[in-house]
């Protein structure tokens, strides 16, 4: 019963809430969209927190994504033990990096008086959520070996079944609690995107790479007005 709730209902609710609220907030109050950087107030501990956290989590997340998109290739690539080992170790290292980073970020939130001023309850909450997420991920990597293999054969099909709107519980029900926790917590993080500073990754400035260096805006474009009327 709980499984049905968590793995068939929750994902859709989470997705809908996240999408609708993020769009709504972007449209109505995009002033609130900000990474709310606090580097200006404290930049030493931030380095040891933010940098390992972001790079660590980026690599780990991309790993998850690649496994999801190309399960067969990943499986085939990992069929040689050495390669699999290398992949696993890399993932673990970046996972540990992220874990270290996020712990540092929490430590920083509590130790600097200037940072306390700009810390909200939600900040703490999502940091704790992230610790849970990354910690469970690292533990899974340690205790349920060769995750890269079983991820592609058990979790990827589940995720795909969710994606095509016919969630197949058979894939997740038999999984250990730790892994279940990891999944549910990931879904929770999704829910909190529009309600917290997580929002900043919806506005990651990739377009910077191809935009012009300078922007000039004419509020009152006479030429255009002449053309229009």
């Amino acid at each position: 019963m709980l499984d049905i709730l968590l793995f068939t209902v929750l994902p859709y609710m989470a997705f809908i809430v996240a999408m609708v609220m993020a769009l709504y907030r972007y449209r109505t109050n995009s002033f609130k969209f900000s990474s709310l950087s606090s580097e200006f107030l404290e930049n030493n501990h931030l380095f040891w927190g933010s940098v390992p956290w972001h790079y660590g989590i980026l690599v780990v997340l991309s790993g998850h994504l690649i496994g999801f998109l190309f399960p067969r290739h990943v499986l085939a690539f990992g069929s040689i033990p050495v390669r699999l080992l290398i992949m696993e170790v890399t993932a673990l290292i970046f996972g540990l990096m992220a874990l270290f980073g996020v712990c540092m970020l929490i430590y920083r939130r509590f130790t600097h008086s200037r940072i306390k001023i700009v810390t909200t309850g939600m900040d703490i909450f999502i940091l704790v959520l992230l610790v849970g997420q990354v910690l469970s991920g690292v533990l899974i990597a340690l205790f349920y070996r060769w995750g890269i293999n079983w991820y592609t054969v058990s979790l990827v099909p589940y995720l795909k079944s969710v994606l095509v709107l016919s969630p197949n519980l058979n894939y997740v029900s038999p999984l250990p609690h730790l892994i279940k926790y990891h999944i549910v917590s990931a879904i929770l993080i999704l829910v909190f995107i529009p309600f917290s500073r997580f929002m900043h990754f919806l506005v990651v400035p990739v377009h910077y790479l191809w935009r012009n260096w300078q922007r000039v805006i004419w509020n009152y474009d006479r030429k255009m007005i002449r053309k229009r009327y």
Partner: protein
Amino acid sequence: MDIRSQISMVFHLDKCIGCHTCSIACKNLWTDRKGAEYMWWNNVETKPGTGYPHKWEDQEEYKGGWVKIGKRVELRGAGKFRGLKNIFHNPHLPVLDDYYEPWTYKYDDLISSPEGNDQPTARPVSLVTGEHIEIKAGPNWDDDLSGSELYAKNDANFAALSKKEQEDMFNLERLVMMYLPRICNHCLNPACAAACPSGAIYKRGEDGVVLINQEQCRAWRMCVTACPYKKTFYNWHTGKSEKCILCYPRIEVGEIPACMHSCVGRIRYLGVLLYDAEKIEKLVHLEDDHLIEGQREAIVDPFDPKVIAAARANGIHDAMIEAAQKSPVYRWVKEWKLALPLHAEYRTLPMLFYVPPLLPIMGNVTEGTYNNKNQTYFTSIEQSRLPIKYLASLFGVGNEGLIRSVLKKLMAVRLHRRSIEVSDMTPEFAEGALREAGLTAREAEEIFKLTSLCTFVERFVIPASHREEAIEMTKMVLDHKGETGFGFLDGPERI
């Protein structure tokens, strides 16, 4: 030709009295609020000195502006690759302590403290944390502190001076200082805008004001690093960067920016410049030596019929063109070549120009008394207390010739006027000085007038904003037509 218009400024440094009225006017109007307490969009610093934020000119540390590497010009500390790579932690970001921790006093304690043996005091508290703090720095901590070991000695411009010259400047008899009021330069090649990953910073086509769209800023903080003048500021409370807006709401209705309007020394001039945007790219790539000359060339003659036609074709309003023809800034910068940009080597093409200070010049002393009776009243500009090299580092990209030519002109104007007013020198002597400086008596007279006798309307020439057209700055006329009367903040709901 791609003619654009820019509202641009000249600050005449000989006239600045260092009163900070400009800073206060700006503070009261724009930055007296949470998260912005430490910001001084307008600040006045004492030179030699380290300025605000501390040592902002030291680009080894802050990595601001553009640099030319071989043939390429790139952002020193930001940019597409460098900026995105450093987005999680920007190692070159100035932090609060590089400015100062803003504070207030617990004034209330003075009247509400319980009766006791001691006089109640108003202790300082931080405006960030609310905790008691010991004040260690302020926005003008080195105000008037010429010669200080901690501040003046660390002036980044001393790099241009030899050891001996530096020591000379700290001789008691030669101690000297000048004021340098600074606001955002509303550059033609703004590094802040180029560095913004979100593309939130833009230049307005109509008047060249550089603005940060608060709805698009996402606190990536790259503009703060990129602006070599450190004139974008990070608001720690809102998580958005902010900068001088050249009081655009005032400009739009034909009023003058608050700092300029309130300037006690009347050092500030505001006017329209027309420039050729096509030249910018080439200009940015010029060698250091040619930057200032190149920028002057990009500023075009508003009387030239070809320029006027091109301006009209670009949709520049006739009132704007007319204002450009009357622009005091055009005269200072282009006609008389007296006003120079600050640190043009940063290659942002700043559109705020400074007339470098001529005084104090060492007086002629014979046997302990100043010799003030004849034409040697002023000694030569070479004996100016502020070494020409130092001024060249600020305003001439190291080119002393540029500064010398400006100072010669300023001196010639003074001699010319003295020969008329005090007549303690022969007219030939004054004429000789004018000739040497390359000025005619008429020009000297005009420079004198615009320096000393200028009225409000001569100092500030921006186009009258036609009320009927002002709305068109932001809206299509026909859209607006159906909206007159009074509006509603929230539209009606008909259900």
